[in-house]
């Protein structure tokens, strides 16, 4: 049997020169491109981003989608339940319902009717438990508020105690929260980064004095500081802005300082200085960009806490003054009629929770994306 020998012409020798073996076949990725690719693969973070974009669009355009004003009061249409055409199965059918129980079926029925002012034409009753098994009889009454008040237009999120449209007010409140988000980010980026950067870069006496100031500021609880500031200024968006500007940048300043202290003695800084770069150039072009990942992560984490802070202040009555809408004030108002009209609390509470969750998830995603250890 003859061995089959392959034809030598099929083989080509490998080119062993350096230029060939060191050739980079995949396009080179910068740190940012790589991080972005990893962020895009993070499903949670992408959903968070999408939710934020949707909420931001609704905050911008939502109030114009219907004709009601933010402050437009009308007591005749107060505490209307939410109604959206086609979303009745979600409970947004413009009705209120309640279960009443009593010893006999008749008593329970009359109690259920009485619950909605005996407007029998607009009440549908349904027997939950006829009382024959020894338990109290229970009757559910469903009251069609829109028919009873003869209101043709729909309030998508219902109305509050003064008859103001909850849809418009919720999105106006969301605007406040998003403004606070931008503000917190800006304060962190501007004051925090500059303070930490300067403190670390110049070192020595400058650092000493600046750190002593921080140490004292850290000792004062943010909340106390903010409440005291709001007390002397008029309550409103301006005083919250100033209060955040005083207290909101300290942790960022500490983080940036720590990083710059590590970086400032490295060779690339020395090289830049030897070439005659000014301090401001070294800080702006060489040091800050190297800390940028951390800065972005920290900013993203400070945003939800700032949003919570504004809502918290508004909730205890120190934030935006009464007629204005903030998610905190809306939730506070919702508490007052929580038992009978839970929808007043529901929508602002859902929106603020969504904002907070979205920012937190996005921040987590960014942290993972910027962390070289997470690389696969």
């Amino acid at each position, binding site marked *: 049997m003859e061995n089959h020998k392959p034809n030598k012409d099929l083989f080509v020798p490998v080119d062993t020169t350096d230029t060939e073996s060191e050739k980079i076949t995949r396009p080179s990725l910068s740190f940012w491109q790589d991080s972005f690719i990893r962020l895009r693969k993070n499903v949670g973070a992408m959903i968070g981003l999408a939710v934020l974009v949707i909420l931001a669009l609704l905050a911008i355009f939502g109030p114009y989608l219907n004709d009601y004003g933010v402050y437009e009061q009308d007591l005749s249409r107060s505490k209307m339940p939410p109604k959206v055409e086609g979303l009745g199965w979600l409970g947004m059918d413009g009705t209120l319902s309640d279960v009443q129980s009593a010893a006999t079926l008749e008593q329970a029925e009359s109690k259920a009717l009485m619950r909605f002012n005996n407007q029998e034409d607009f009440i549908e009753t349904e027997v939950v438990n006829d009382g024959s098994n020894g338990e109290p009889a229970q009757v559910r009454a469903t009251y069609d508020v829109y028919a009873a008040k003869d209101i043709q237009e729909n309030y998508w999120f219902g109305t509050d105690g003064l008859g103001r449209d909850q849809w418009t007010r919720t999105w106006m409140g969301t605007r406040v929260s998003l403004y606070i988000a931008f503000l917190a980010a800006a304060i962190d980026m501007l004051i925090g980064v500059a303070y930490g950067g300067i403190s670390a870069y110049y070192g020595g006496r400058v650092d000493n004095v600046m750190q002593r100031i921080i140490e004292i500021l850290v000792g004062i*609880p943010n*909340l106390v500081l903010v409440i005291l500031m709001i007390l002397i200024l008029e309550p409103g968006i301006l005083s919250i802005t100033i209060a955040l500007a005083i207290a909101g940048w300290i942790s960022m300043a500490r983080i940036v300082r720590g990083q710059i202290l590590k970086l400032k003695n490295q060779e690339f800084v020395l090289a830049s200085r030897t070439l005659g770069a000014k301090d401001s150039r070294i800080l702006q072009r060489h040091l800050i960009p190297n800390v940028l990942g951390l800065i972005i992560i920290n900013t993203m984490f400070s945003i939800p806490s700032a949003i919570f802070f504004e809502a*918290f202040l508004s909730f*205890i009555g120190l934030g935006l003054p009464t007629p204005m809408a903030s998610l905190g004030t809306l939730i506070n108002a919702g508490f007052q009629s929580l038992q009978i009209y839970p929808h007043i609390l529901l929508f602002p*509470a859902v929106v*603020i*929770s969504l904002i907070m969750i979205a920012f937190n998830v996005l921040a987590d995603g960014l942290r993972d994306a910027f962390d070289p250890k997470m690389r696969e």
Partner: protein
Amino acid sequence: MTRYIIQRLIYLVITMILIATLTFFLMKFLPGTPLSAADKLSEEQQQVVLEKYGLDDPVPIQYFNYMVNLVQGDLGISFQFDNREVSTIIMERIGPSMQLGVQAMVIGVILGMLLGLVSAIYHNGFMDYTSTFLAVLGQSIPSFVFAGLLQFYIGVKFGWFPVALWEGWEYTVLPTASLAIFPIAIAARFMRTEMLEVMGSDYIVTARAKGVNKVGVVFKHGLRNALIPLITVLGPLAISLMTGSLVIENIFAVPGIGEQFVKAINVNDYPIIMGTTLLLSFMFIIIILVIDLLYGVIDPRIRLAEGE
């Protein structure tokens, strides 16, 4: 170490003096007067009241008196409740606040640790995703929204626990739960990260290779080492509980310091605002100090770094 503690104590005193001064002068610039129905009183009547509380003295003298009294533990007399000393009012109310805070902290950290532990053990499994998801919710949903949900469903709909007030142990359940949700979330997330890192380290592999069973490795080798960094989050958590108590105590009508603080702000009761602010700040600084010292005691590496 001694030098470090002394240095920290000096900072503590400076910060307290600064806060006391700041609070005093801010109160002086507050809008509104402490007189209720000031427009109904004649000039003379107003004068009498102001004199009684020493409010007609020049500001520096008021400041001096205030600081002297403060050192002696005298926080002044409340405007709101006749002739009641602020220090007694605060002392009466510190109990419920402390109880809520401690309960929330203990429950929060223990539950959070367990949740984090489960996440780490079943890394990338169903349990992990569930508990991570719950932790994100707990961290994100504002405590007052959560308090509302608890009040509505558990308090009103199911009637398992009282909706508000403070008349026995069962009244602490809902407020404690509302306060504990944030510590649970933070402790769970922290524990998960730490535990994953510890479980990946060489000594764990060694222990497994030597034949220690999985439970033994997790509890004896893993948990202990993962616990140390958890101490760092205790400080921020305690502070968040202090902040949270302001709203939670109001929502559940708990007769604590937070509720009194918010009330006092609304009626311009300066001595109570000042007293509470100082107390909160003091507790805040002490917590940070204790945590810093504790961290040094527990982790030898930090103590060494301080010594150098």
